[in-house]
């Protein structure tokens, strides 16, 4: 339960931060949530990882559907990828790793306290 609540809170906070702060604010959001809602470092990492991955995945899906996949297709070719789905995977993976690391750091800070 704590795991799912953490994911939800991290996702919402990361979204809000993203509106006003630079892209790496997703790490700050998962860091804050992980240091407030205590879980083991591994579970925290997974929380941040899943939260940002899901957040970015949902956002990208919405943007891309409204855009009829025009730009994702073009950019995937610019970046030498096989198709826009790979761009989606790469984006979400980057968000997930950064989110996971932020949460891990937050959880470890909590342990120090």
């Amino acid at each position, binding site marked *: 339960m704590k795991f799912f609540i953490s994911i939800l809170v991290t996702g919402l906070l990361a979204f809000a931060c*993203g509106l006003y702060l630079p892209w*790496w604010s997703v790490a700050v959001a998962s860091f804050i949530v992980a240091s407030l809602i205590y879980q083991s470092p591994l579970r925290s990492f997974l929380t941040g990882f899943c939260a940002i991955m899901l957040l*970015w995945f949902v956002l990208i899906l919405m943007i891309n559907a409204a855009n009829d996949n*025009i*730009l994702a297709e073009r950019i995937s070719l610019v*970046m030498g990828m096989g198709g826009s789905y790979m761009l989606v995977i*790469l984006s979400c993976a980057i968000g997930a790793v950064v989110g996971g690391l932020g949460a891990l*750091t937050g959880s470890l*800070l909590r342990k120090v306290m």
Partner: protein
Amino acid sequence: MNSRFGYMKIVYFLLSLSVTLIVIVLLSLGFGKAPPFGKFLSPQHGFWQNAEPATQQYSGDLNISSIGHSTEIYFDDRLVPHIFAQDESDAFFAQGYLHAKFRLWQMEFQTLVAAGRLTEVLGAGPDSAFLNNDRSMRRMGMVYGAKRSLAEMEKDETTKKQLTAYTNGVNYYIENLTQAELPLEYKLLNYMPEKWSPLKTALLLKYLSFDLTGSESDVEYTNAKAFFTEEEFKKLYPLWHESSSPVIPPGTYFPPPFDSIFPPPSADSLYFKWKHAVNVETIKTDQDNGSNNWVAGGSKTLSGRPILCNDPHLGLNLPSLWFEVQITTSAYSVYGASLPGAPPVVIGFNDNIAWGVTNASRDVLDFYSITFNGNDKSQYLLNNEWKKAELIIETYRMKDGSAFTDTVAYTVFGPVMYDDRFNGKGRVGADINLAVRWMAHEPSNELKALCDLNRAKNYNDYAESIKYFSCPGQNFAFASKTGDIAIWQQGTFPEKWKMQGDFIMPGTDTSYKWKSFIPQQENPHILNPERGFVSSANQVPADTSYPYYLGGDYDVYRGLQINRMLEIMSGITPEDMQRMQNENFNAFAEAAVSYLIQHVKFEALTDDEKTYHELIRTWNRRNDNDLSGPTIFLNWYEEFEKMIWNDELAKQPGASKVPQSATLIEALKRDNTFPFIDDINTPEKETIEDIATKSFQKACVTLALAEKNGKLSWGRFKDTGIRHLLRMEPLSRLHLNIGGGRNVINATQQYKGPSWKMIVQLTDETEAYGIYPGGQNGNAGSRHYDEFVSDWADGKYYRLWHMKKNESADKRVTSILKFSPSFFK
């Protein structure tokens, strides 16, 4: 125990923190050509934010302190903004805002190119290509010219106000731009826009001058003169082509010149007989940067009113060079194509008149050979004395933060563009120092010409306004609702003695300077000619009865074909004009193909070659996309031309110039034993039959390969494409299967062609059509990015909507953007 655990906890935390920070930093930096992945792929910041919903609206209400009155912008279904403002300042503010909103990256990028600052965003490039381009721009005095023109523009109170309003509009957009809204290319290349300035607008206009006057061949002609005899030279590069059909109808009276000028006494020895080849590779723009415009007068049209047509042929790029806009103030209402980066409309029409431009193609860029006193270039020889040169240090900042410095010497002629530090390709040994004298160095206010033209009501207003247009010289075609038609070749042109500036001139003697300029009133022009039409297509402006020296580098066949067609047409409708702009008849092929076929030794051909022979023999001389004739002709003529010229030109030291195609065909038709026919590298003496046959056989090899790849049809072979400015294929529209080509009215070549096609019938209710190969929104994530390309490729047009204020409820209006004056900063 506890303290050790506590210690380890801190280590784990710090370790995790460091890893996190390092990952974030790495994902925020770009490596090589790759964008910073984290920043670029974040859905709330990166490129995903540029992926516009297909149903995107552009409506809004903005409170702005720097405008005077409420301004409304109505976007139609093609995203053309119709600006309704009280006065010009508010209108130009809005135009600046809109240019920035839809084309910011492009307009800034083009000014970076003009200012020689490409290295700042792209680095030095492969083989220092970008650095060399930057150095060429600065060394030819682009920034120098822009600054001088800006000072001239700002002397004029009205122009200054207009420029300020426009600049404020652009900067209002930039200041309120978020990381998410940043145009895609900034994100890809990882840099930020600067604030706009009037100097950037001046630079953009100078870049246009470079694009349209930068194709001169002084170095090539100098090398040819050094190698060939005078007689040979005249055969290679004649000053007149018999097939020419000048802009001003032959037989038109020209008053005697205001003054006669002669070459300096030393010209024979120091200039004409100076035999010195030059190791310089000049930067130049494509000579095919041409255009068509014509006006059929009321006597030739069905409506009894003039129809004006214009299609400037420039590089076909995405985002497009042009942005359609309507500007309506309480004083006037104009519609047309504007240049992102500058107010107002460049080619268009208002409630009373229409106008269009083509390039005058006159030579207004000359080189002078400078003698320096020693290596530091601080002194140069002038009239037997050492004169001090002004040394300007140019610094080029690289993308990686390093810098490159270069010193440029300024002389009385102009900046020394080529010297021992730079020959166009990089560093070379001392050979020659060439100072450049260029019309675009002169202070001028072209913006005033355009702004006045936008509000012109009649012929007099038009003739008065274009006087301010100095460089690049243009043929301004004009038509009014009152039935007047006219054309002026307008620009400030140096008065030259015969062949002055065709070669590098001695830079040690001020008597070789441009002495004066041709009085504006004596520029070639005609109002309501008897023949009922005016036209221009970069051909020679007038025949030899024009009292000033015109040089010989002019296009021949498009102008010929346009005049032939207009001569016989009558009862013309706008639809006829659409067909004419899309006309694919190849007047050069008409002149050349029968001649070539006549001289092929048919019996010497193989069966396969005979098939191609039959295809070109029966070809209707039209460059239609589905025909193989144009492909066969192009390949054959290219081989033919090489076999005629290359043996001689290869022996000439330094850069050389292949003579014009009209030169060759006219010469051969006059004289079957033209001396250049023989291949001087073989012992036997080739005849025209030998060369025609050999070149055909050689072309057949290429043709067979093209056929195997399904590229024998002209549209496939030519392979027209609209390329992104950064040459990124996925952001381009390539492989368009369309006809046209060189020497054809439909001048669509591979990467250049009709960049804006406009037809305006000046009936009481204006009937106008237009299209350009692009879309209004420069964002590759918008459906408006390349919206018009397919219709353009199909030769279609859009009916242009010159909206009236009371039509705001029209269903074509898709979004409304309102600017209201605000008293709070």
